[in-house]
C-alpha cells in the first residue's frame, strides 16, 4: 500500500540504522588487527600479534570460562524459575497475580546499579562472600524476566484445549507436560534462554557488585580498557565471541517465529 517514495525512504532509513549499528562493530573488527595498542585514526598498521597474545592469554580463558559457566547456570535457574512463574500466572487465578509480572520485570527495569547495590548488600548482610555463586544469583535474577516473557507469550498462543485433549486421551499431568506442553513451549524456552544468556554474558554493572576477585569476560574487558595496554586484544575477543554467537542468534529468531502451526 505504501507509495514508491515511502518504500524507498523506509529502505534508506533501514540502511542508515544498520550503518549506525554496525560502524562501531566494524571498527572493533578492524582494530583487532591494530599494530599499536592505542586506538587512533587511521589505523597505524596491521598486525596479527594480538590474536596470538589473546590466544595465549590465560586470564582471557579464565574469564571466558567463568562467563560461560555463570551464564549457563544463571540461564538454567532463570529457565526454571521464569517458566514456573509463567505457568502459574497463565494457568491460575490468584491474589496478586498482577504483581508477579510487575515483580519479575523489576530487576531489569530498575537501574542496574540499584539491582547491583541491593544484591551486594544482601550478600554482605548474610555474610555470603562474593563468589562465583553470587554472580550466578545476580544474573539469574535479571534473566528470569526474559524467560518469563517468552514463555508466557507462547503459552498465550498455545490453546488450552491441547492439554485438555491430552488428559482427555488418558495422559496424566506429567505425561501431558512432557509430551504436549514441553514440546509446545520448547522453542520459546530455547529462545528465551539464548537471550537471557546473551544478557548475562555481556553484563557489567550488576556483575561489578556481585563478583568478588574473579573477572567475568566483561569485567576483564573493562580492566583491559582502563589499562589501555592491550585494547586490540579486547577487540580480538569481541570478534571471536561474535562470530561464535552469530548462529545462536539466527536460531533464536527462527525459534521465536516458528509458532505458525501452533496458532491454527
Amino acid at each position: 500500500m505504501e507509495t514508491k517514495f515511502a518504500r524507498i525512504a523506509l529502505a534508506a532509513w533501514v540502511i542508515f540504522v544498520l550503518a549506525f549499528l554496525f560502524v562501531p562493530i566494524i571498527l572493533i573488527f578492524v582494530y583487532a588487527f591494530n599494530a599499536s595498542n592505542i586506538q587512533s585514526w587511521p589505523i597505524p598498521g596491521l598486525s596479527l600479534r594480538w590474536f596470538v597474545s589473546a590466544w595465549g592469554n590465560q586470564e582471557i580463558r579464565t574469564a571466558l570460562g567463568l562467563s560461560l559457566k555463570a551464564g549457563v547456570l544463571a540461564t538454567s535457574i532463570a529457565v526454571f524459575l521464569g517458566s514456573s512463574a509463567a505457568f502459574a500466572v497463565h494457568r491460575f487465578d490468584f491474589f496478586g497475580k498482577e504483581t508477579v509480572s510487575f515483580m519479575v520485570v523489576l530487576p531489569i527495569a530498575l537501574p542496574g546499579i540499584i539491582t547491583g547495590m541491593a544484591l551486594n548488600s544482601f550478600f554482605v548482610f548474610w555474610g555470603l562472600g562474593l563468589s562465583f555463586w553470587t554472580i550466578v544469583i545476580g544474573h539469574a535474577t535479571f534473566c528470569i524476566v526474559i524467560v518469563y516473557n517468552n514463555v508466557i507469550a507462547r503459552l498465550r498462543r498455545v490453546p488450552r484445549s491441547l492439554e485438555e485433549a491430552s488428559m482427555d486421551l488418558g495422559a496424566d499431568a506429567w505425561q501431558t507436560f512432557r509430551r504436549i506442553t514441553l514440546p509446545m513451549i520448547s522453542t520459546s524456552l530455547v529462545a528465551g534462554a539464548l537471550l537471557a544468556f546473551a544478557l548475562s554474558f555481556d553484563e557489567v554493572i550488576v556483575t561489578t557488585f556481585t563478583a568478588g576477585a574473579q573477572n567475568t569476560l566483561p569485567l576483564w574487558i573493562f580492566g583491559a580498557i582502563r589499562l589501555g595496554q592491550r585494547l586490540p586484544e579486547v577487540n580480538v575477543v569481541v570478534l571471536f565471541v561474535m562470530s561464535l554467537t552469530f548462529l545462536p542468534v539466527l536460531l533464536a529468531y527462527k525459534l521465536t517465529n516458528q509458532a505458525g502451526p501452533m496458532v491454527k
Partner: protein
Amino acid sequence: MLSGAVRRVSVILWRKPGLSAGLLLAPPLGWFLLIYIAALAALFISAFWTTDSFTGEIDRTWTLSNFQAIFGSETYRLIALRTIFMAAAVTITDVILAFPFAYFMVRLASQRQRVALFTLVLVPLWSSYLARVYAWRLIFAHEGVLNWVLHGLGFQSIEIGYTNWAMWIVFSYIWLPFMIMPIYAALERIPYSLFEASLDLGAKAWRTFFKVILPLAMPGVVAGSIFSFSLTLGDYITPVLVGGPGSDFIGNVVYANVGIANNVPFAAAYASIPLVVMGLYLMAARRSGAFDVM
C-alpha cells in the same frame, strides 16, 4: 511403580488446583521476595542512615540528612535532571530510529530479509557493550573517524567527543536493539485490515500513521522505552567513557559513593530518585499493556 506414584500425585494436584499453583509459584516468588525485594527494601532503609567517612562504618541513627544533602545541593539536582532528561532524549531518539525500521521489517521486508534484519539487530547484543562504547571514542575523537569523513567531504571538523552530545548518540546506539524488538512485536500484531480500513475511509498515509498505527503500536513503544529509559537512567560507564566535564549521571554519583567512597546510605538515598522515577514509569507502562509485548 514410579508411574503409579506420578499418577497419584497428578490426581491429587488435579483435585487441588490451589496446591499446584502454590508449588509452581513458590520457587520464583521465594527467590524474588527473599533475595531481591528484601534486599531492595533493606537498601532503601539504609538511605536514612549515615556513614563515617574515615572508617566506613554505618551509623544507624534515623536521619533525613542524606536527602537534605541531595535536595539542598544544586549539583545533585542538576545531575538528577540531566540523567532523566538524557534518558528521555535517548528514548525518543530510539523510537524515531526504531519505528520505521520495525515497520519496514513487518510490512515491506520479505521473509528472508526479515530473518536477516532480525539477526543483524540482535548480533550487536553479543558483542561487548564496553567494546562498542569504546569504539565510539575513536569515531568522535578530534582526529577520529567522524572528523576524517567530514574533512574528506570538505566540511569543518566538529568537536563532539566527550560531550553530552556524544553520550546521547552512544546511549541511543547501545539501546536501539532493545527498542526495535518490542516495536516489531507490537506492529506485527496489528491486523493489516485496520490499515486498509483507514485508507478505505479516506485517510492518507500520515493520518493513518498517527491515528491508527502509532496508537496501536504504543504498547511496543512503551515496552521498548522501559529498556532504553531505565538502562540509560542506571548507567555510569558510558558517561565515564564518552562523557566530558558536566556529564556525570545519577549512576556515577551512586557509584562514586558506594563503589568508591563506600557511603552506601548516601548512595541509597540518591538511588531512590531513579527508583521512584522507574516505579511511576512502570505503573504507567503496565496500564498501557506494554508488559504483553516485551
